[in-house]
């Protein structure tokens, strides 16, 4: 049985695609000689050399724009943000240039680039380093947004992203990079066959298509929708709630853009209750969008309102206790499920 960390799954996806296609290169801060600030690209410089694994200075506007220009020319850049929090200084390049080039040029110049990095709260990093960007970017036409929650999804989605002709934002999580590692408290989940990706030898063509949700845990009583790190909060909650006799179905959309609303709605039609979890702030969040779409498509199937669980509406605090408290954590999800199913 295969065990693989989330960070290793990301690396494996990049390595496999780089072996297949010389146009693919990785650029970012400390990706080469330092072996990756988070050891994601460890060893890649040795295999691929400085032409394809490129250390860039701390210059997000510069190197993300470089990625867009190189993609217009025909290369397949992977641009790593050490944290998506740092992408904010490159807003013009990644919001204006990357996703709109194809449209503005009447279909002549696309942007087959991947922008990837850590998203969301790390550990006590304070407000500026704890950005969750999915709600900001999910409303931008022209880009695709993937948010993997397991090593398997991390590998499969990233391989799809690298092959995709459109710009893809891949939102990873510092808190998940070690998931799957021996000794991790969540290790037991990751030794499930279904949560580890196949090796290249086992399956050369392994990819995970965008816009296909994954049922992370089947259940019949209530639908919990969550993506990225909150999937694990939701699974923890489901374990707890099972003891109370509430059987949760946890649905992971895996990509917010495109969004597989069909699978979510199908589940809600079965359970008649819905809790939507996302790790961004509540106002105009991706969770709000999903809730709205559930209302639009399954109003008559709902036996209660949809409850949203988000970050609290505050800048992320440094204090450890408060930081954990502000996240869409297990306790908040348990409370929401109890409330929505009239078990509060």
């Amino acid at each position, binding site marked *: 049985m295969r065990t693989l960390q989330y960070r290793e799954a990301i690396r494996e996806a990049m390595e496999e695609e780089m072996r297949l296609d010389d146009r693919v*290169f990785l650029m970012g801060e400390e990706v080469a000689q330092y072996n990756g600030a988070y050891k994601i690209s460890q060893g890649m410089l040795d295999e691929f*050399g*400085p*032409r394809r694994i*490129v250390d*860039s*200075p701390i*210059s997000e*506007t*510069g*190197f*993300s*724009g*470089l*990625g*867009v*220009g*190189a*993609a*217009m*020319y*025909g*290369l397949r*850049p992977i641009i790593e943000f050490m944290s998506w929090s740092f992408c904010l*200084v490159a807003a*013009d*390049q990644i919001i*204006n*240039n990357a996703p709109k*080039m*194809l*449209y*503005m*040029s*009447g*279909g*002549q*110049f*696309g942007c*087959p680039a991947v922008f990837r990095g850590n998203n969301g709260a790390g550990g006590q990093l304070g407000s500026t380093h704890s950005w969750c960007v999915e709600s900001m970017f999910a409303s931008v*036409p*022209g880009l*695709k947004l993937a948010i993997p929650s397991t090593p398997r999804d991390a590998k499969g989605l990233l391989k799809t992203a690298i092959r995709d*002709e*459109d710009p893809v934002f891949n939102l990873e999580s510092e808190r998940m990079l070690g998931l799957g590692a021996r000794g991790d408290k969540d290790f037991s989940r990751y030794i499930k066959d279904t949560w580890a990706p196949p090796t290249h030898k086992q399956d050369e063509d392994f990819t995970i298509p965008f*816009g296909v949700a994954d049922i992370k845990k089947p259940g019949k009583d209530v639908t919990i929708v969550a993506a990225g790190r909150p999937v694990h909060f939701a699974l923890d909650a489901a374990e707890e709630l099972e003891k109370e006799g509430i059987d949760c179905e946890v649905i992971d959309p895996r990509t917010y*853009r*495109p*969004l597989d*609303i*069909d699978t979510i*709605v*199908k589940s809600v039609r079965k359970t008649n209750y819905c809790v939507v979890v996302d790790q961004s702030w509540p106002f105009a969040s991706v969770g709000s969008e999903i809730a709205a779409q559930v209302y639009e*498509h399954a109003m008559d199937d709902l036996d209660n309102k949809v409850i949203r669980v988000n970050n609290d509406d505050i800048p992320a605090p440094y204090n450890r206790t408060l930081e954990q408290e502000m996240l869409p954590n297990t306790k908040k999800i348990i409370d929401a499920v109890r409330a929505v199913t009239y078990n509060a």
Partner: protein
Amino acid sequence: MTSATTEDKVKTTASHSLPKEKLVDMLYQMMLIRRFEERTMQAYQQAHIGGFCHIYIGQEATAVGAVAALLDDDPIITAYRDHGHALARGMHPNYCMAEMYGKITGCAKGKGGSMHMFDKAHHMYGGHAIVGGQCPLGVGLAFATQYEKKNNVTVCFFGDGAINQGAFHEAFNLAAIWNLPILFVVENNGYSMGTAISRGTAGANDLGAKAKAYGMRYAECDGMDVLDTYRVFKREGDLSRGSTSSALGLEQAGGGPCFINCKTYRYQGHSMSDPQKYRSKDEVSEKKEKDCISTMVSHLIDNKLATQDQIDELDQKAKQVSRDSVKYAEQSPDLPKSEMFTDVYSQPYGPPFVKGALPKMLTDNNSGE
């Protein structure tokens, strides 16, 4: 080449060895841009063209002189005052005008407009509308040609207003550390919209210091003189062309990036809606005395490279082609609604709300249940 006659050569401020045909073509390109832009202004005033529209009149020598010094597949990229670059690069005037009319026959199907002239076939990587935003893109193009070991040089144009943007400085830094084959070109017309360069740029009288700060070559040219522009771009382009970097694992070679300060002047306002209160009429008319087209015309006549009749003929042709482009744009079909949702993604799929339709399963259920 000693057999070349003096008739076929031209003597200007610097040594050129351009054949007569090329010189005449450069004059024609400038005439075409000017006549085309006159029609553009007219069409804008008649409300056939909408949005923001920036006229290139006065600056023609820069785009024409620069492009004349390049190989056909050298990538170029510029800002929003981009009609001249598109035409100089070889875009058919019909497609350029139709784009501004928002027609399906435009270079970007009418989805980009005046500020977004793209022409893949001619290696024109666009006009870009956010000041300075194209500088990192230009660096990406240069990185890509180096990555692919091509013998090219990228030319990245911008206005003097872009010098004050962060993107400009980040682009300079990256190009310098990786010895990229790129010419950064400031089309220095003295004003970023209504702000004189001395009011907005520290050290405005010494832009070379900015290049020096990044260890980059610096050159100046008279942007009102197409031959001087050509001379500088040929020289610097050849030095930069095909540069490679040991930092990227290649053998270090070539002169790397260069910053070229093209001193030019725009006769019209910043955009079509500019009352130009920030400069005097005298200043404008004084600058017009050193007009790039008149200078080239005198040069050709003085050196007996063309007759006045031939020059009038060229101008008639430029006028006719420009008139034709308007007719073409007028007669072209509008951008159909069916094109609204195309080119958002490279494949015709995406989130349902992008396609403007409900997901299949749901529509099936709604109609079937």
